[in-house]
């Protein structure tokens, strides 16, 4: 996974009083290291490889090596995308899916964070409800698509409900794990200071759980996007999913590719959006978390699935 570190310099930033953790180590001392980090952030070989790949694909299409019946040329995909934007179908579809995913995700995150903090802090609550949550989490979310389409009909509401359902469980599980990671020493110090329970959650528990929560948010976003797409493919007559189904039936391959490829871009954008927002709103926590917000870490035993 690419480095998730920000490239922003942290010199001159005011000390964040909310960061109850130890101050983040100074990393700007070495200019060369800083330049290397920015360089690493751009990843030239990776970008070059993508460009070469698309170039080869185009060359293959032009030479007739790549059959256009399955792989339309990149040029035709781009022209088709421009045409679709001009015709006013592309952007509304993307907007619809984006709206459905984001609203559903936000609902799921709100519920998931509240439940996660509660179950992570209270052993009683955890004992009395965790197995129910585990059973509900085991329900393959995809099976709920037919059910919700049946109950709520082919509407934006069913998309909201599905995205929320997809997001809520990863957020709960990762929040619980994160809250449990809060060190007893930090908790004790906070207690000694005699701060209120809400302040304690905000200043001690939240910073400790932060990295884990970010992982939950990212996984939840992936599920939310996938579920809104399925419900669009199966029922709702709008959004990218619906367009994908439509273009597949009419065998308009450049348009099909254009809509499929944009879902990946959307997934990437939403993922980077979470990290970028976190970096802007919680710069200290994000810097302190470092690689902990990555989805794949080389130290497996401490992760939950």
């Amino acid at each position, binding site marked *: *996974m*690419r480095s998730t570190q920000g490239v922003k310099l942290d010199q001159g930033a005011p000390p964040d009083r909310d960061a109850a953790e130890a101050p983040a180590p100074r990393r700007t001392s070495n200019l060369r290291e800083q330049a290397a980090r920015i360089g690493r952030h751009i*990843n030239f*070989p*990776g970008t070059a*490889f*993508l460009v070469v*790949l698309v170039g080869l694909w185009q060359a293959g299409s032009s030479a007739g090596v790549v059959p256009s019946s*399955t792989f339309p040329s990149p040029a035709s995909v781009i022209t088709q995308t421009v045409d679709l934007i001009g015709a006013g179908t592309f952007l509304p579809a993307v907007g619809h899916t984006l709206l459905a995913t984001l609203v559903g995700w936000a609902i799921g995150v709100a519920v998931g964070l509240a439940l996660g903090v509660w179950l992570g*802090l209270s*052993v009683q609550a955890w*004992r*009395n*409800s965790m*197995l*129910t*949550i*585990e*059973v509900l989490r085991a*329900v*393959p*979310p995809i*099976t*709920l698509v*037919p*059910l919700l*389409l*049946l*109950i709520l009909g082919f509407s934006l509401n069913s998309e909201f409900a599905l995205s929320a359902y997809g997001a809520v469980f990863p957020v709960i599980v990762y929040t619980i794990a994160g809250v*449990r990671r*809060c*060190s*007893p020493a930090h*908790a004790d110090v906070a*207690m*000694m200071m005699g701060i209120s329970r809400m302040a304690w959650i905000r200043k001690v528990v939240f910073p400790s759980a932060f990295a884990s929560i970010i992982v939950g948010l990212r996984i939840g976003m*992936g599920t939310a996007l996938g579920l809104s*797409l*399925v419900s669009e*493919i*199966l029922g709702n007559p709008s959004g990218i*999913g619906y367009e*994908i189904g439509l273009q*597949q039936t009419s065998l308009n391959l450049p348009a*099909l590719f254009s*809509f*499929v490829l944009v*879902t*990946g871009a959307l*997934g*990437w954008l939403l*993922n980077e959006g979470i990290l970028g927002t976190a970096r802007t709103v919680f710069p200290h926590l994000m810097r302190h978390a470092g690689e902990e917000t990555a*989805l*794949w*870490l*080389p130290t*497996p*035993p*401490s992760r*939950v699935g």
Partner: protein
Amino acid sequence: MASDTAVKSRLMDGVKSRLTSSRRFQGQDNSRAIPPILGLWPLLLLIVLWQLLGSSSSSYFPRPSTWWTSIDSLWVNGTLVPSLLATLETFILGLIITTILGTLIGTLIGRSSFADRMLGPLLEYCRVLPAPATVPLAVLFGGYSQTMAVGVVVFTSIWPILLQVRASARAVPGELLDVARTMHIGPRRTVTKVIWPLLLPGVLLGLRVTAPIALISSLLVELITNIGGLGAVLAQAQDNYRAAEVYSLIVVLTVVSVIVTVIVSMAESRLRRRAGR
């Protein structure tokens, strides 16, 4: 001055009691342990209330006893078992291919820093590409066949295991490889004695994350393309507004999903114990 000490001691008592109460739930990570059976009561209560207060003829929320009748009729008319087996076949084939390919490719990419940098963005893009969007493309290449279904399962569920193994392979310490080289133990034993034991936890973790995704992907393909399997049965039940059947299939698939998770977790802990970590 006596009152001062009294205040102090009362303060300390307060601090102590808060300390112990905080200790009770802090620093214990049982997020991976199976939660106590007690926690099932909210779900059971819900089902009992649903049964007592619900009606059998409700078109959206039929009471749980009707779920049983509908699963029974699916069993009797012979759709349940063959469909379940078809789904499981796609799932298991997909998972086996995914595990092998994911481990191999992940190791190769993780061990070569150039390949790692070069393929990084492409892998990241493929990971975030939502599974449902890939199904129409897969149909284009593979037609409505089981090969296509397995292909979709592999393409959509390979990323957790591949990227996890890549992260683990990246972290294999170079000193250990140097030791292997100094001892002239040969490439085969370097892989089996040095690299594999270090990768195993990553592979197992990746497998645990991948298995549910593979099951969901198998259902997804069936649901969208209507090729045989429980996903297709589910889609038909929805099309014909048979709510009880939809609920019963959800229950069946949840049970399957729980069994898969339990098997994978058991295999993981057993293999990990045998590997001594």
